[in-house]
């Protein structure tokens, strides 16, 4: 791995963290309305997988998708503007936090329905074959989706049709408010994928962006090479509640100090990079740049125009 790639991973992890912390702040200040699901604790999955994606690949995300779209290259200012519901937002303020789409970056779908994007990925992958783009479709979802019928139909059809899909399951071991062992008896989610007839691997340390990247790169090579779908389970910890302001989150209990070191993607990825020989001052610069980029974008977005209701009935039909 080149130093540029390693620094790029760290840069994404930091950008996403600063972004999510800024979003939390905006919510607490009353500037963002609605339910917002931040991805604090999941940053390394977005950074690692998106770094392994090719330009022609499609990305389909869900309700906890801020990190995915940022890592895939969506404009940071327009992303925060969308979460604020502003005219300059990616979707002109019509989508909000759970519907961040940027088609020019291959981010073709973002659904607020758990499990809803898995079937969409099948069609996107099939289109890659029909149009011979050589690309793959990547769907991000959590372990909560495995209790949903769409999950099982999608895995079955993807394997049946040998589609170029990478299913990325961010297993934080909690579905909304319900712990994994209370919502399924399947302890190893890769087992589910394998019985449907696809390759599946688990990344045990999902806070390490380098480990995620390496696994995703290998998976996407197989997928693009005609190997059929691939299921990547990445173990992470959700370091916040289901949504910002989730009072039930405290019931899970906070991670202990030594665990934070392992499960916080900013800390974990940094340690990995230092182990790889990256210089601390270089990493500090990347981190400071990420913070500045986010703060400038947030400031600009806050100063941008509110969405206008003049055209609220337009664009229902294309």
């Amino acid at each position: 791995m080149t130093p540029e790639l390693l620094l790029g991973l760290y840069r994404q992890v930091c950008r996403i963290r600063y972004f999510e912390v800024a979003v939390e702040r905006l919510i607490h200040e009353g500037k963002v309305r609605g339910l917002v699901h931040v991805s604090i604790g999941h940053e390394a999955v977005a950074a690692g997988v998106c770094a392994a994606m090719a330009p022609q690949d499609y990305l389909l995300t869900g309700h906890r998708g801020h990190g995915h779209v940022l890592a895939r290259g969506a404009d940071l200012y327009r992303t925060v503007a969308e979460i604020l519901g502003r005219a300059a937002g990616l979707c002109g303020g019509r989508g909000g936090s759970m519907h961040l789409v940027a088609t020019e970056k291959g981010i073709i779908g973002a659904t607020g329905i758990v499990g809803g994007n898995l079937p969409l990925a099948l069609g996107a992958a099939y289109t890659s074959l029909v149009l011979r783009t050589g690309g793959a479709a990547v769907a991000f979802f959590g372990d909560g989706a495995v209790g949903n019928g769409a999950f099982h139909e999608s895995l079955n059809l993807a394997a049946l049709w040998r589609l170029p899909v990478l299913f990325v399951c961010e297993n934080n071991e909690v579905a909304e408010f319900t712990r994994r062992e209370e919502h399924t008896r399947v302890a190893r989610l890769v087992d589910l994928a394998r019985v449907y007839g696809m390759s599946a691997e688990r990344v045990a340390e999902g806070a390490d962006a380098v480990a995620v990247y390496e696994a995703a790169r290998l998976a996407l090579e197989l997928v693009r090479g005609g190997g059929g779908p691939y299921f990547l389970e990445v173990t992470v910890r959700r370091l916040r509640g289901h949504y910002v302001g989730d009072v039930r989150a405290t019931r899970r209990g906070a991670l202990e100090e030594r665990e934070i070191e392992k499960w916080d993607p900013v800390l974990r990825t940094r340690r990995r990079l230092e182990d790889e020989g990256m210089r601390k001052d270089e990493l500090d610069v990347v981190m400071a740049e990420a913070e500045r980029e986010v703060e400038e974008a947030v400031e600009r977005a806050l100063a941008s125009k509110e969405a206008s209701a003049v055209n609220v009935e337009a664009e229902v039909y294309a």
Partner: protein
Amino acid sequence: MKVRAVEALARAIYEAMERNAEIILLGDGFGGLSPVAREAFRPVWDKFGDRVMTVSISELGLAGAGTGAALAGCRPLVDLSTGSFIFQAWPQVVNEAPNFYYMTGGQSCVPVTFYSLAGIRGAGAAQHSHATHGMLGNVPGLRVLVPATAQDFYDLMMWCLLESQDPSVFLSHALLLLEEGELQTDVWNPPGRAAVLREGMDVTLVGMSVTVLRCLKAAEMLRERGVSAEVVNLRSVVPLDVETLLGSARRTGRVVIADECHRTFGAGAEIAATIAEKAWRELKAPPVRVATADVPIPFSPPLEERVIVTAERVVEAALELCEGRRS
């Protein structure tokens, strides 16, 4: 040229696939179970087999795959089989596909067609008999097509596969597939244009899908009773051709809406309300609905016959209107 509706349908799919390589078929049961339908579709399977996916019983997965393929640039036609099965695909049909264009600020259009063999087909009982156009018509972003004639089947399918940029539900009807009608294939009439199939002076009979045939039969029965009935075939409920509806309502002053939805909150209610709101002064009587009774469809034929829309019931409603028994 006279053809059966299913032949017109198969022909449209064949011709559209020939013109556009981005059209893909998820599923292959479009004609239902009849051998005539199987035969009509044989050229499609023979020529375009590589663009037809064999499927499992996975309506949700298929509807989502169709939507995702449309998001990525294909033009899929998804076979959702018997009409009531669309409920298995409901989250994708009503809460994913129709939202994308609006929700993304116009970035993503979704030219997917969901094919659904809907309606009361006879002895289907409660779980294989749904008319879904009223429910679907309540979803902004969806096109809802209700073909009646062979020409409608051809025109609307050509439009879906070649021109539409929106998700459409093509509501085929099992009782129409073998009906014969004239077909010309030079141009195709898009949805949103109702067809006046028969002109009349005294009363307008509004039909959609299978009830168009019953309205035509009713008009003939009414003629024998000295009543001149106009028959409007809606062809689509979204978009709804309000102009043609109002024009006819204003000419005759009396409207009977024949609709296979259950009466309460069905498509007929929307049409009646629209006519009442916009043409009230020109009406001689309030619009009347002849709709399916508000009961789950019973299996036994005499029971089923009691709850459905028939030509006789349309005639009865029209006569009541014309004779001033309802006002």
